[in-house]
């Protein structure tokens, strides 16, 4: 059991080695620390914005998505959406929004843990954090697609507004509205965190892989 754990956690760095090549071992630790921090901070910042402009809304309507909630003119947009038979926005991604903060905390802890694991398993622990921004976008797109394509056929404006796929990034249009969607600061922080995680693990593997190999060689040597 402890052998398996040791295999997963990987070899520890000898004191003299650590002193001799401080930067080599410090690089992954610091990079991953920053990655975790950015991911955590992103929880407080908007991931995605949409602005809707129509003649009778000269100041526009705004929709802002954080990982955990929607804000802005949700009521007004829902009110308008009922004319085309779209379900209320609050019904979209309810599970994702409820779980998001916990998921990010979990990713935070996984990356934290990964920093102490010196074997190749570390990569696996970092995978969720590294792919999170992509997952967010894909999920957003799928929900918008589901909502846009499943309009109530009995809605008042069903004859003039047909099912459609809303634009997740960039300019789109529906009815008399033009929509402008783009990514928010939170998303970019998460993306930066993802990039730093990947870079961090490059440093991580560069530092610890030789140790793992050496330890492996030693084990085989002893066994032989």
């Amino acid at each position, binding site marked *: 059991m402890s052998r398996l754990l040791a295999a997963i956690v990987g070899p520890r760095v000898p004191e003299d080695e650590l002193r001799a090549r401080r930067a080599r071992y410090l690089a992954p630790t610091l990079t991953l620390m*920053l990655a975790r*921090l*950015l991911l955590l*901070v992103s929880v*407080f*910042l*908007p991931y995605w*914005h949409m*602005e809707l*402009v129509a003649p*009778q*809304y*000269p*100041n*526009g309507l*705004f929709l*802002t998505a954080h990982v955990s909630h929607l804000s*802005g*003119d949700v*009521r*007004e947009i829902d*009110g308008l959406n009922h*004319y085309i038979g779209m379900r209320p926005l609050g019904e979209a991604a309810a599970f994702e929004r409820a779980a998001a903060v916990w998921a990010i905390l979990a990713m935070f802890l996984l990356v934290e843990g990964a920093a102490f694991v010196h074997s190749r398993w570390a990569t696996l622990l970092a995978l969720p954090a590294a792919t999170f921004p992509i997952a967010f976008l894909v999920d957003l797109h799928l929900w918008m697609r589901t909502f846009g394509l499943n309009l109530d056929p009995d809605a*008042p*404006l069903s004859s003039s507004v047909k099912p459609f796929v809303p634009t997740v990034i960039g300019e789109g249009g529906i009815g008399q509205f033009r929509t*402008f969607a*783009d990514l*928010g*600061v939170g998303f*970019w*922080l998460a993306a*930066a965190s993802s990039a730093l995680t990947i870079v961090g693990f490059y440093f991580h593997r560069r530092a610890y892989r030789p140790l793992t190999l050496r330890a492996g060689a030693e084990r085989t040597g002893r066994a032989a």
Partner: protein
Amino acid sequence: MKTTGSTFRFRTLAMTAALGGACLGMLAPEASAQESRRRRGGAEAAKPVELTAEHVGLLTKIADERRLNVDDLLAAAKTFMPSGRHDEYVLFSSGGQSGQVFAIGVPSMRLLRSIAVFTPESWQGYGFSGDNDHVAESLKIMGKPVLWGDTHHPALSETGGEYDGEWLFIGDKANARVAVIDLRDWETKQIVKNPLTISDHGAAFVTPDTEYIVEGGQYATVLGYGYAPPEQYKEAYRGMVTLWKFDRVKGRIDEARSFALELPPYWQDLADAGKRASDGFIFINSFNAEMAAGGVERGEPPFEAGASKRDMDYLHIIDWRKAEAAFKAGKAKAINGFPVIMLETSVAEGLLHFAPEPKSPHGVDITPNGQFIIVAGKLDPHVTVYSIDRVKRAIAEKKFSGQDAYGVPILDFDAVKEVQVELGLGPLHTQFDDKGYAYTSLFLDSAVARWTLGGEYESLNSDRPWKLVQKTPVQYNIGHLSAAEGDTVSPDGRYLISMSKWSVDRFLPTGPLLPQNFQLLDISQPGATMPVIYDMPLGVGEPHYCQMIKADKLKTWKVYPEVGWNPHTQRLDPNAPRQGQEGVTRSGDHVLVNMTAVRSHFHPEHVEVNEGDTVTWRITAVETAQDATHGFCIGAYNINLSLEPGEFAEFTFVADKPGTYPFYCTEFCSALHLEMMGYFHVKPKAVSATDADEASGAVVAR
């Protein structure tokens, strides 16, 4: 715009990365709020105008075709507002017999809206809320509805003698009432009826910090709605001035802290509160110092002759701070339950002095520094200017030329008079600008007179002091006039409104009843240049006074602050139905309807009651978008509401007419506005007795 957006983002990103750390979390809300306020279609920047030969040709052609001269073109350029551009000033005008207030943009002279005050007004749903409507209650006098008013003088609330844009007060001459309008939602919040007198004139005027709203009387009566035959005019009839205490926090006049002063039965006319040098005083004109009691039917001279016989009337000078102290010291007597400082107390305490003024004056207006009190002669071609320093000295040194029949000391005219300036025929009212000029309306001459002030104003222009500079004809019979913030401690100049009472030939004929003519004068140039640049017909009443406030001082709400807002209490109403709480409940023969209105339906859509039920109906407009206003009417039941975004309304009535009544939204709120309706079913007594339990699709009150 997209580039700006991403630049902003990258800057934020860079900053974020640089800062790092937990402090970012705290910055976050601000950053995201900023981002969400970003606009894509911003207003186009104004470009300098370059007239090409082609433009000039085109303009010339249009001008020729429409018979416009260069002055007309310039006037058009000064007043035209491109779509979407907002006026610089808002004119709050009395609506005369309409009982309303009108808000007009300056310089475009576009009517922005009316504000219902003393008259039920259906668009605003003012006074159409069933049996115990608080509006209808506020319009009752001695228990009976009085459904109109004669709005005369609006007064914007002031702080330090400047308009602060928070409140608007207006007097009703016909019924001696004062109304309070909240300028956050532009709705009337309170109406107080003067308990002493039937009609008034000197209302409303405010003291420099809106401590009090002044309501001066007009036609003397027996105070407290009493009776006495005209033979007892001198003994029994009295004038008065009421000081209504305004409670800014509550947004209401506090009747319990208000008081009045008894005045002789001269007909008190216009009033103004002193400011700066004259702070602490109230000035009121009067006419009929003769105390003529009329009686043309008995061969007596009519009022018009009897009341204008003498050469002099009395300018009333009241020390309101002293009067307030006397009131607080318990020196007032209750008349009709209202505290009144009687004349003998005023005389004994030195609260009231008179200054002689040329006969039958009209306006009394105080210069911005408070130094000069200007009385317009009406039947005298002069304005008479008093100086507050002289007045104070004469009071201190008791320079009296006598006392009137009631013992009120009369200050020596020569001791208090600064100067008299001859302007022309029928001077009525005076306003001020920022260049040392005063503007006086000349009713008979049908002109606006510009003249120079003296004292500290002498250096502000190159014209000699106390001289007429220019008379601009107006069309016709000007009453009040109003310059931009022209009765405050710091007038803006620039624009002046002539409230011309006769329009005669100015507009297309509209039958024998013609509109008033609001004329805009450009007073931005000094000297003799003071052209009329716009005529605005106002065919909805005969306004009296108006005040012009810089638009950016108003802190107007765009929608109500929260959904479920009660505009009467100006707070969230605990009774406002929220979405999900809709329904109809019965207790005995009382039915409670909880309804929401949202584009484009009411919920519930069927309400069924029994004939004779008392119905209390509550509606919340569940809207937060600007201008997403709904209406709600029940035909034949005299119900109509205006449900502005977020507004909560409640009304109660007896369902005494059986039948099926469609109710509907009376504002074209959306594409499905016509579908925004429902049915109010009133089961006839006979039917409801037999099949009360029969199931139906309607929401039946049980």
